[in-house]
C-alpha cells in the first residue's frame, strides 16, 4: 500500500511542477508590478538585455546565440545547446523550478547578480516572439 500512496503522491505533484512559457511570463510580470505598477514586459527591451554584455565577458547570446531559435554553443566548452526559444524547442520554460535554476546560474555568470523579475519577464517576452 505504501508504494501505491507514493505513486499517487507523485502523480498529484506533477501538475504543480508543469508550467508553460506564457504563464511563467505572467508570473514574472505580476511579481515585477509589485515594485512598479506600470510595468509591462517588453520584447524589445528583452532583446537588448539578451544580446548586451553587462560588465562581464559574456552576454546571454554568447551561449544561446542570436537569434535564439537556432542551436547555441557553450562559449567555453563548445558543447551544443538546444535552442532556447520555446517556438523552436517546446520543452523550454515548461518547468518553473528548472527555469529558476538556470536563471539563477546564468544571471550570475552574465551580470554578476540575480536577475530581477522585470528582466526575466522581458527576456521571456523576447523569446516568445521568436518563432521558427
Amino acid at each position, binding site marked *: 500500500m505504501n508504494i501505491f500512496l507514493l*505513486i499517487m503522491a507523485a502523480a498529484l505533484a506533477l501538475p504543480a511542477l508543469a508550467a508553460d512559457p506564457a504563464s511563467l511570463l505572467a508570473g514574472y510580470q505580476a511579481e515585477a508590478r509589485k515594485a512598479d505598477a506600470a510595468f509591462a514586459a517588453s520584447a524589445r527591451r528583452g532583446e537588448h538585455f539578451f544580446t548586451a554584455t553587462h560588465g562581464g565577458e559574456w552576454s546571454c547570446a554568447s551561449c544561446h546565440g542570436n537569434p535564439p531559435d537556432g542551436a547555441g554553443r557553450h562559449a567555453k566548452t563548445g558543447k551544443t545547446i538546444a535552442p532556447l526559444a520555446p517556438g523552436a524547442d517546446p520543452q523550454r520554460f515548461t518547468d518553473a523550478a528548472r527555469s529558476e535554476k538556470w536563471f539563477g546560474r546564468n544571471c550570475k555568470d552574465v551580470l554578476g547578480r540575480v536577475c530581477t523579475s522585470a528582466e526575466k519577464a522581458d527576456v521571456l517576452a523576447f523569446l516568445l516572439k521568436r518563432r521558427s
Partner: protein
Amino acid sequence: MRPVLLAALLALAALPAAADKPRLPPNPVYKAECGSCHVAYPPRLLPASSWQLLMQRLDRHFGTDASLDAGAREEIGRYLAANAGRREPPPGVEPRITETRWFAKEHREVPAALWKGTAVKSAANCGACHRRADDGDYSERTLRLPK
C-alpha cells in the same frame, strides 16, 4: 492495485536498457545536472578525492556557476564516490580529467592544432571527437576527428 503493477512492469522494462551501457553507470540526476554544459564525464576518469573537490565549490566551477540544491548535490556526490576511478589525482583545487597523466598519454597522437581549433575549442569538449560521449561511449568505433 493496477498502478503498482504498471510501475513494477515499467521498472523491469527499463532495467535491461540501462544495463547495456556499463561505461557510464546510469544515473539520470548526474546526466541531467552534470551533462548540460559539457558531456557528463565518466566518473571513473577521476579519483574520489578530485570529485569531492569539484563538488565542494560548484558555485565557482571553472569560472561559471554550476550550483545545485542540496538533494541533487548529495545524490551526485554519492554516485561519483561510488564510481570513481583509482588513478593518481590531477593537480589543483579545480582538478581536470584533461590534466591527468592518463589523458595526456591516451591522447598523445592528437595533433596539437586540433585541440585549439574552432571545431573542438577545448580538450574538455570530448563530444567533438567521441561522437557518443553523451552516452559515455568512448570506444574507437565512435571516434571521429573533426577536420
